């Protein structure tokens, strides 16, 4: 054996499946994720428009356009090969985890008024509150530990 293979099966078990037929033949197939995300956006959008009372036949493009656009934007791949919607969700969760700094780092003074606070809370330059990690642990002599009776 001249080489020792080092395979990885991640892509094999995470196949992007395509829908080749949906009533009619779809040719080379449409990714099912596209159909799913599109269906979700379309469903929500239709509900919203129907609640507002927008007639479908008069505003077909209004019904179809935005969900289609949102689907395209949400399914763009980022540098990590992930769909854009995942990054959006991560950013929203990150904003929730962030706090206004109580102990700002040098060079980053605390905001002086409410408007400043609002802006710093929601801009990229804002720092999360420094988390103070205090590690304290008991030292155990495991040779003295007896196993629990079963």
């Amino acid at each position, binding site marked *: 054996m001249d*080489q*020792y*293979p*080092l*395979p*990885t*099966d*991640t*892509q*094999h*078990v*995470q*196949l992007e*499946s*395509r*829908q*080749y*037929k949906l009533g009619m*033949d779809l*040719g*080379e*197939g449409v990714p099912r994720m596209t159909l799913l995300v599109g269906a979700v956006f379309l469903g929500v959008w239709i509900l919203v428009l129907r609640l507002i009372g927008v007639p479908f036949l008069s505003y077909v493009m209004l019904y179809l356009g935005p969900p289609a656009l949102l689907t395209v934007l949400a399914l763009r*791949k980022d*540098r*990590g*090969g*992930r*769909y854009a919607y*995942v990054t959006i*969700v*991560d*950013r929203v*969760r*990150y904003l929730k*985890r962030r706090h206004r*700094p109580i*102990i700002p*780092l040098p060079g980053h003074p605390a905001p002086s008024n409410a408007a400043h606070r609002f802006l710093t809370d929601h801009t*990229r330059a804002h*720092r*999360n*509150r*420094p*988390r*103070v*990690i*205090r*590690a*304290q*642990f*008991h*030292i*155990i*002599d*495991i040779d*003295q*530990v*007896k*196993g*629990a009776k079963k």
Partner: protein
Amino acid sequence: MKLLDQFTRDEARLRLPEAIGRGVTINTDGGGVWGWVELPTRSTDGIGTHGLFLETARGSADLRKLIPAGAEGQAKIQWRKWTGDEYRANELTDDMTDGAREYIEAGAERIEGVNFPRRQVLLGVRFDPGAAHRKGSIATEGIRKFTGMKDTRGDAGEDLATTIDLVRSWHGRMATSGFKARPATVEQLAWSLRRDVRRTWDWIPEGSMAGPGEIARLAAASVTPTDDHIEIMTDQGVRYLRLLTIAGGGFPTADLSLPGGEWLKNLNVAALPGDEPGDSEPVEVSIRFRNVPTAEALKRLEVALDLAKEQDRSARQGLAEYAPRHIQEAEATLTERMSEIRKNQIGMVEDTVTWVIEAHDLRTLGKRTQAAIDFYANMGITLWAPPAIQDLLYMELIVGDRRRIPEFAQFRPWDTVVGAWFHGGSALGADRGFYLGANMGSTPGPFINRLSDAQMEGNPVTTVAVGASGAGKSTGVMLMTLAEAVAGAWALITDFKGDLGGIVTAAEMYGVPVTTISTDEVASGSLCPFRYVRDPKDAASMALDNIALALNLGNESADESLVRKATNRVANYPEGTTRSTWAVIQELIGDSNPAAVELGERLAELAEDPLARPVLGIPDLSGGSRQLSTDPGLVYMRFVGMRWPGKDTPQAQWKPGQRLTVMLVQSGFAYSTYMAGRVKGIPKVVALTELHYILRYNFGREFVGELALTGRALDVNLLLDTQGSTQLLQVPDLIDQISQVHAFTVRTEDEADAQARLLGLEPEQSFRDQQIKLRQEPGVRICITRDRQGRIAPVQFDYLTHEIEVALTTTPERFRQKVEPDDEETEVA
């Protein structure tokens, strides 16, 4: 489901160990009980391709069997620094000379100046029994958690009691695995934690660690996460970290292989051009993994295979006609993988790898990040820094915490993780000895060695340095000899080319007593055997050999018989001071046999030759009994004006000067060996340089072979330096006497193959290419070293100080001689 994995994030607070013991950490707040072992640095850089395959297969089999099915685990690869303190503690003694102390201090400063990174690899597995075992009702537990009142130590003890047998058993089995793992010490675990939260390099100071039953506290750390990096306040200011992981679809499915695909072996991936020592360090890596149970792995593969088949069928039924190629590849691969699992040939692992890029400022952090990404891009691996979850990736690194982001997990055979070769290494040298140079292998560090410890370890006493001219052999030999002399050994070094005189200067810098013997200056008759060999009969025999060589006498000839009689007569002189080779010559001249007279007269004429005078000349006793001191010190023996016979010239056709050259060398070596044998009670090293001058001859090879055997008998360490590796292999029985090899660059493949045999390797094209291309630049001369334990790694010898470097430089200098113009100088065009 991948869809769910995309959104699964464990945002709970950081779970730090609440209790640490030898080989174990415990967190009672969801972190669990973890067993920890250290994977010590081994010597695997030089095991060759076949060895690499075997060790990878063995390691994969070990881990998939030794890590419980379904268990979580973590491998942490971290780096600290080698310090000079350990070297000082090992080598400095109260009875040392000032020079020796200064030399050791120079070595310690060099170790610190070079900034060697020192790897620590910890492997942990979770043995969590779950919360069900805990005593007390759910309400009690709830109140405890709500109020924060909990008996951490008691809970930790309970958790440990239920799992300690499993942890101990696991420790034992990991120790017998190919990794030779040992339970991680409390200091190692505490240091790992401190390194993660405070970015401290320093080891835990001796005596500062709390003992069993006590509480240890790390100084508080201020960690500030941002969208795309982490900021940590340290004692040296802010440190910036960026965590990288593998992008989706970013790991090659089938294109990575060994040799060459060791994707975690070289971790100097964030270095920038122009970095000074200490500017960048190897990157830290954390691998969070889960040993996937067989049934689960098969199920997962089966589901994927069903999907692949469904896709293939759907495509064929429609206008598409064929599914995309990756579907067909997936079908084939998944089928094969399932077969391998069913046959118990492989096991599957789910792992998330995180690389930690670190810098002093954001701009450098960006550059180092890009350098790491580019490095791995060349291997076909795509890394990226996921935004908005840097804090979660950071927490995942830390001992005691858990995997927080399943999305980035790779699903693959254990072979791919073990084949990354984050374990193994380039361990080399001894724990104690002199700092001689840098170990340039995958786990760099100081190369510590002491030649004269070989016999104490029960090893053969011969060390060889082989390689082409100008490759650095002589420098390495001088540095090893110098170290021994400074430390109080009796050391002798021979010099045929006249370029090793700098060792005298260097030795005197450290107060080493030096004796210089130059064959053109040495007293007449001082190398005559009668002067130093105790047994006159032995001296007579050696004198006969010298005379036979000088006169080119045939074996068993009448002339030889005449000379033998004369030497025997001299051996019987009652007064020792009257015995000498010159006396033998006088015996021949005074013989009644005209043939003897003629021999005597010829010898008397020859004795005038500078090459013969030290051996055959009139004894010059004005210096008293000239014998070398047997006290610690350095003897520098220089051979001047050698005239070597051609290697293909039959001995009968050697010219007189050539015969005398060989006689002088033979006598000089015999003298050195004899004197070395007289030294008692201290280490002895004899360094014979440029041996290719004599190895080209049969007598030379026999002589060196006998020398190696004699050296062992006399407890003398031999250091042999030669350009001719092939010639060295022809020396009878020498290879069994060699315990250490330094193989410098060569110019031909034959020489490379000979070096491979000396190193104990099979000759391979990769080794030939490596040896021919070994880095050779001014001041950078690397050799492949095999130490006395048979471990192999590249080494660069270190001069320690600029003064030693200046003294020992053997490269000739060229300089323009300034010519003062005459007053009537004409113009120069």
